[in-house]
């Protein structure tokens, strides 16, 4: 069965139905909920693969694209139309989301096995999957935005899943509000786009806002400061992506979001949702990349498209987050900052190289980062909810499967040459940045970021898996672990199986996009790049391969030298780097004090403004209301006096009369049914007498 674009909605519908059904399922029906969610996801995966297959074998991106639109709302003369689109971009995302999602669903069965709110968890997961898939297939910026917000909602619900933990509740709120800031700007962009283009459909037989007709129209117009309209809109939309993808300066929510259950971190905050920002940029890429007809006074057109902004933001984020990651001690937090950093890489890729470069890294990253997160989850699960890497250690011995898969993920993330997917995708980004005309800045930043990545991943692996176990043994505080004593233990198969599958993909996925065989780029871009082993030895390619090999080697070597050579033995031991430069290390450990900066600036301003509004309310508006109320009370008093002495005197008398009458009649209403019956009997007789004889007499 080939999935047509018209039946594309079935893919998000499946998890949505599952979410709805699970929502009405009672808590004890765990097996039902899990199998429903997994089954729905499986069906979605099959449908997605079918859709994916149907896009293969097309020569150009335009030919592979099919969409179906329908009328949604009729507002006056304007008709709002929604639709689905199936093109290589959405197809590859569909497969990735459903596949990784399915594995994470399966993994969650093991991870959440002891949780009381098991069914609720699967309800939220399914809801999230539905929203994400809807986002991917949307052919309308508005529909995309709706799903975008739904994704945000699901993320909020899942981060705050353990809402009884104050930190989780706070993290959920933080994530929700921070991303909302980006979303407001995004919405502004949507509104602007609608007012300028008159449509929000991406593709609509030549009339969509991403098609040539509208694009050139948009690029032709200018707004304040000589900025092209398309650039302005692109920048606004990019703000949404900044929020969602945790780019600087809105990255603060992502590390905190690690308070959620680990499968959530893997699914939402590593593989799919955060990638939504990158996907958004890729989706509206034509808008950002549209060459702007150079107005008078500007020499080089690309400088005023939105892409350089994307590239620079990404580059800064990549390094910034990587630096922070170096000094973190929480296993998931390191991965979180790593995610932020890698998202920055994707943005660089999009900014300097195009859709295929960024998306390739997105896909490979989704797999190995999900792998890493799930591996971290496995570690946490096996070590009695311990997340501090200083209290772990030596797990190589206890959890061989987790170690092996984690190591693969780590090498993929670090970009160990040739055999790991991360290498090829990151290499593509570096190469594109290197050949980027406007500046070499992003290239250097990215290279430094890659170095740091290799370093901090090595540090983490050394801490967690080498040396001796530093956690408290024989600690029975965790009720579920009473069976296993205090020893770390390998996770159940339902958790390790997805790890293994993901590990396989973390390796092989790289080969679909090597310079020697750029299938992925061809597929996504619809171009036909040259292929062959010889491509590897082209000047630029070889250069970047060598550079990155050096970088990775240096990073890993440095990490191994500092942390692997003589393993840490005491959990309270001071970090090697801290011993070396406590000031910088402190700065990094405290995440460059960004949270604190926001605390003293944005949040304080907000609080001050709220207090101001409050006092305004209290003194000014309240005063006015009070004055009016006193006036009314005065009038009422006059009224009352009039009432009491003029009207009531007369009224009281008549009331008294009525009351007396009522008292008289109430003797008839004595509650004795038979008295009533008697009256009815008498009345019956009287009526008959009247009717028969009364009539006759008249």
């Amino acid at each position, binding site marked *: 069965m080939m999935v047509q674009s018209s039946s594309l909605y079935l893919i998000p519908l499946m998890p949505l139905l599952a979410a709805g059904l699970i929502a009405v399922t009672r808590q004890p029906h765990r097996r039902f909920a899990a199998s429903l969610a997994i089954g729905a996801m499986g069906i979605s995966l099959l449908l997605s693969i079918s859709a994916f297959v149907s896009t293969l074998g097309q020569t150009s991106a335009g030919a592979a694209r099919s969409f179906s639109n329908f009328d949604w709302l009729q507002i006056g003369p304007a008709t709002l139309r929604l639709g689905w689109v199936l093109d290589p971009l959405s197809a590859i995302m569909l497969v990735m989301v459903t596949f990784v999602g399915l594995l994470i669903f399966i993994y969650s069965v093991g991870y959440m096995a002891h949780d009381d709110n098991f069914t609720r968890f699967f309800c939220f997961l399914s809801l999230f999957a539905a929203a994400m898939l809807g986002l991917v297939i949307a052919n309308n910026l508005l529909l995309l935005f709706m799903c975008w917000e739904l994704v945000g909602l699901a993320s909020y619900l899942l981060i705050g899943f353990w809402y009884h933990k104050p930190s989780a509740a706070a993290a959920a709120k933080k994530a929700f509000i921070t991303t909302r800031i980006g979303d407001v700007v995004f919405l502004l962009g949507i509104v602007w786009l609608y007012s300028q283009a008159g449509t929000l459909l991406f593709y609509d037989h030549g009339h969509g806002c991403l098609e040539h007709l509208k694009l050139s129209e948009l690029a032709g117009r200018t707004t304040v400061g000589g900025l092209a309209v398309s650039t302005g809109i692109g920048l606004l939309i990019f703000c949404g992506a900044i929020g969602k993808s945790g780019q600087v300066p809105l990255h603060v929510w992502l590390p905190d979001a690690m308070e959620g259950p680990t499968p959530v971190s893997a699914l939402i905050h590593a593989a799919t949702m955060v990638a939504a920002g990158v996907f958004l940029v890729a989706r509206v890429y034509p808008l950002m990349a549209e060459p702007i007809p150079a107005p008078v006074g500007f020499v080089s057109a690309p400088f005023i498209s939105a892409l350089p902004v994307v590239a620079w933001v990404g580059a800064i984020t990549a390094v910034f987050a990587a630096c922070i990651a170096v000094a973190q001690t929480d296993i998931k937090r390191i991965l979180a900052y790593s995610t932020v950093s890698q998202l920055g890489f994707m943005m660089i890729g999009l900014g300097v190289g195009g859709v295929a470069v960024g998306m390739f890294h997105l896909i490979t990253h989704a797999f190995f980062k999900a792998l890493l997160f799930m591996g971290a989850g496995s570690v946490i699960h096996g070590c009695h909810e311990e997340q501090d890497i200083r209290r772990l250690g030596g797990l190589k011995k206890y959890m061989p499967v987790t170690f092996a898969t984690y190591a693969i993920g780590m090498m993929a993330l670090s970009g160990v040459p040739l055999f790991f997917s991360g290498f090829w995708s990151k290499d593509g980004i570096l190469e594109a940045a290197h050949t980027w005309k406007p500046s070499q800045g992003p290239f250097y930043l990215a290279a430094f970021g890659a170095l740091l990545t290799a370093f901090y991943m090595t540090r983490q692996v050394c801490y967690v898996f080498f040396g001796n176990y530093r956690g408290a043994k024989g600690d029975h505080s965790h009720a579920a672990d009473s069976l296993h004593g205090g020893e770390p233990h390998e996770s159940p198969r339902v958790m390790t199986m997805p790890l293994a599958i993901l590990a396989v993909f973390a390796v092989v996925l790289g080969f679909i996009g090597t310079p020697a065989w750029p299938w992925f780029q061809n597929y996504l871009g619809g171009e036909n790049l040259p292929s062959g082993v010889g491509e590897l030895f082209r000047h630029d390619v070889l250069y970047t391969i060598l550079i990155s090999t050096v970088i990775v080697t240096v990073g890993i070597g440095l990490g191994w030298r500092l942390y692997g050579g003589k393993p840490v033995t005491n959990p309270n031991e001071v970090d090697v780097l801290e011993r070396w430069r406590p000031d910088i290390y402190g700065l990094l450990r405290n995440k460059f004090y960004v949270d604190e900066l926001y605390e003293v600036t944005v949040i304080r301003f907000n609080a001050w403004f709220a207090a101001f509004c409050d006092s305004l309310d209290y003194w000014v508006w309240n005063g006015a209301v009070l004055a009016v109320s006193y006036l009314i009370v005065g009038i009422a008093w006059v009224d009352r006096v009039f009432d009491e002495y003029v009207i009531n005197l007369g009224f009281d008398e008549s009331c008294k009369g009525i009351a007396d009458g009522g008292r008289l009649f109430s003797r008839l209403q004595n509650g004795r049914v038979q008295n009533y019956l008697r009256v009815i*009997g008498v009345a019956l007789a009287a009526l008959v007498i009247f009717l028969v004889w009364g009539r006759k007499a008249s």
Partner: protein
Amino acid sequence: MQFAFAIIAALTLVSGIAAMSLRNLVHCALCLAVTFAGLAAMYLQLHAQFISFAQVLVYIGAVAILVVFAILLTRSGEPVTHPVVHSSWIVGVIIALLVFGVLTKVILSSSISSAALHPLPPKDGPSVREIGNSLMIDYVLPLQVIGLLLTAATIGAVIIAMHEPKISQPPASTPRVNGAEVPHASGHSAELTHHP
């Protein structure tokens, strides 16, 4: 024919009076059943077979049983020491007599007693098929309404008679035993009943 009518009428009336005047409520209920049976016989005499059977089915088969159940459930079947009628029962009787007098006067003085109103030539009344057709064609709306009414009444009766939370139950016995307790219990059987 006249003779049969007279017998049936007398039986019905006597049992009706008994149903209204006996001291023991269970006897009243049984007499009521006899009255219903007499009325059913009268319908038969009027060639309204279907009505007659329905009368037996509903009144004797259901209403009389319901009354019996109600009597037992409210312990009304036990002997009472106080008078069973009102202090002012004479008023009721007078009113009833008044109504009867008026009705009789009306019947006797109306045109139907003088005019030659002849019953239909003896036949077996309408067949069941005719009644059915009539119910399903001419009277289908009332039939539906009656169905609705019966449903509502059933639900209502169940809800009304359902057990309330036991706040003021006498501690001596459970309701189940109440229902089954020998009605006008002489001493020893009452004791037996309260045996745990």
